[in-house]
């Protein structure tokens, strides 16, 4: 892959974070914490890795990204809109009646979604099946599966973990499969460590036969490098442990289980967007004079407050 344009990828991730907050505020429900922790991973995938064509979402040789942690689909919608799968204006239909932007991914409703997910623990098995099918077809396409950390408490994940390094061997090894764990350390009920600790994560996956890489899941250069390594690995699928921060980019959401599944109110959303853009409260009025689209967004959210 091309050397990542770190500045550009970070700018896209920032814009997507803003859209995540916007659509969740409009929806009035949803999952900001995990959407913000996974967005740098999805941005790197969609804008520096995946061979996809938004005009041909059923192209047989496209790379697949399966968001197994389906509750964080606002992040996926944000990158898909930006990549051109649908108009960005549709983002605010999230969770509204009749919208293809369902609260959790719906493959039938929205072209470009690879599998219905959201019932946790199922995406890795589907991804393995895809990787196997692509290998059998002699396709060069790759499959990327994004798991939540709490999600790996599901038993099916371990059935899948046991099978992926072995299925297809020796003629069709699944080295076209790469799994990324969004290890933000928080699940709905609290800290993963307290609810049902996953550790030792790296050793577990290694013991199941996977090469494991560890990265900072908010560093797009590190993400991209790990994806390169995964692509260069022969004979086995790769597992990437991406250490992330739940709610990353919004001070009052970071590392707070309360923001796992609660949408920001309009005023909170405006504050969140200001923080994502790195603008101080004092500088905000002047900033809005220089950034028209953000000013319009703030006005839009302000109107939401009055509804």
């Amino acid at each position: 892959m091309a050397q990542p344009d770190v500045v550009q990828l970070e700018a896209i991730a920032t814009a997507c974070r803003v859209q995540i907050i916007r659509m969740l505020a409009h929806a009035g429900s949803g999952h900001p914490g995990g959407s913000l922790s996974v967005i740098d991973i999805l941005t790197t995938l969609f804008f520096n890795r995946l061979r996809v064509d938004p005009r041909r979402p059923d192209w047989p040789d496209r790379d697949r990204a399966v968001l197994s942690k389906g509750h964080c689909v606002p992040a996926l919608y944000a990158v898909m809109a930006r990549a051109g799968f649908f108009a960005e204006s549709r983002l605010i239909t999230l969770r509204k009646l009749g919208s293809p932007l369902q609260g959790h991914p719906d493959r039938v409703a929205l072209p470009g979604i690879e599998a219905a997910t959201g019932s946790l623990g199922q995406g890795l098995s589907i991804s393995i099946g895809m990787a196997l099918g692509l290998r059998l077809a002699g396709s060069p396409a790759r499959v990327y599966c994004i798991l939540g950390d709490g999600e790996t408490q599901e038993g099916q994940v371990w059935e899948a973990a046991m099978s992926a390094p072995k299925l297809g061997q020796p003629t069709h090894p699944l080295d076209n499969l790469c799994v990324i764990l969004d290890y933000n350390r928080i699940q709905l009920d609290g800290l993963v460590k307290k609810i049902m600790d996953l550790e030792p994560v790296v050793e577990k996956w290694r013991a199941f036969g996977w090469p494991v890489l560890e990265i900072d899941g908010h560093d797009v250069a590190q993400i991209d490098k790990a994806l390169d390594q995964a692509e260069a690995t022969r004979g086995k699928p790769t597992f990437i442990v991406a250490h992330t921060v739940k709610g990353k980019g919004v001070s009052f959401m970071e590392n707070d289980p309360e923001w796992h599944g609660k949408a920001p109110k309009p005023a909170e959303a405006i504050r969140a967007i200001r923080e994502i853009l790195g603008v101080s409260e004092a500088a905000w009025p002047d900033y809005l004079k220089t950034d028209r689209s953000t000013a319009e967004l703030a006005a839009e959210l302000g109107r939401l407050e009055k509804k």
Partner: protein
Amino acid sequence: MPAKASRAAFGEALLELAAKDDRIVTVDADLSKSTMTASFARAYPDRAFNVGIAESNMLGIGAGLALTGKVPFVCSFACFVVGRFETIRVSVAYTSANVKIVGTHAGIAIGEDGYSQMGLEDIACLRALPDIPIIQPADEAETKQAVACAVEHQGPLYLRLTRQSLEAVSPPGYRFQLGKAVVLQPGTDVTVLASGGTVFNALEAARRLAAGDVRAEVINVASIRPLDEDLILGSAGKTGHVVTVEDHSLAGGLGGAVAELLSEVLPTPLKRLGVQGFGESGDAGSLYAKHGLDPAGIAGSVLKFLNR
């Protein structure tokens, strides 16, 4: 045609169809010798996947294979595969993955292994999901056609098969069609709707009833969804009495489907025969007798129902 288990007919049909359709693959969970896909696996080792005893993973892998254009048959005992209902619900059904789910060892007729191995609630579970066709063939000929139909059908589908051998019941030249039932024995006094392993016994019961001058119309309902509503309503309207016979829980199976149809469209006195309570170990014949699914039991229930 000699009696043959529908699982055995399935294994043969799959092997024949696979020769001309390389989209067909199998995914098993350590029961390929029982689901009868083992011969497919020997013939096409690159197209047969055994995930070990992990049915949820089997279903998900099947979904992924389907999403890349394969036609996967994911196979296990009916109770084990449909037991992973949540995976079927989201990975297969809601995803609309073209997976053919095969549940063998349906019903109490598996006998000695006892309840934990008996598929008794699978139809009820899958009927609660939108759209998935549910097919339960009654003999070898119908099974082979049903397998071909499963390959042709675009979308998830459930095939319910037996461990026990089934006597041939299909008329010469019969063609299975999704959504179509078939009258095996015309009659005027009572409609007997049977499916799978109970069809032959229903025909036997009809013969006994005929001796007592009760003319039973026996209909084989292999397509439990979509249900052949026209044929069933037509027969019910003619006879005025309907009996369903199935090796499945009384709740939610063929009897449930027919009860829903009749009560809404053509209220008709209905008697459902099926399995009550948990199954148990025993020989298949004794179990059918205990649950009134043998010819004598079916005939007796019909007479009682008709107040004869």
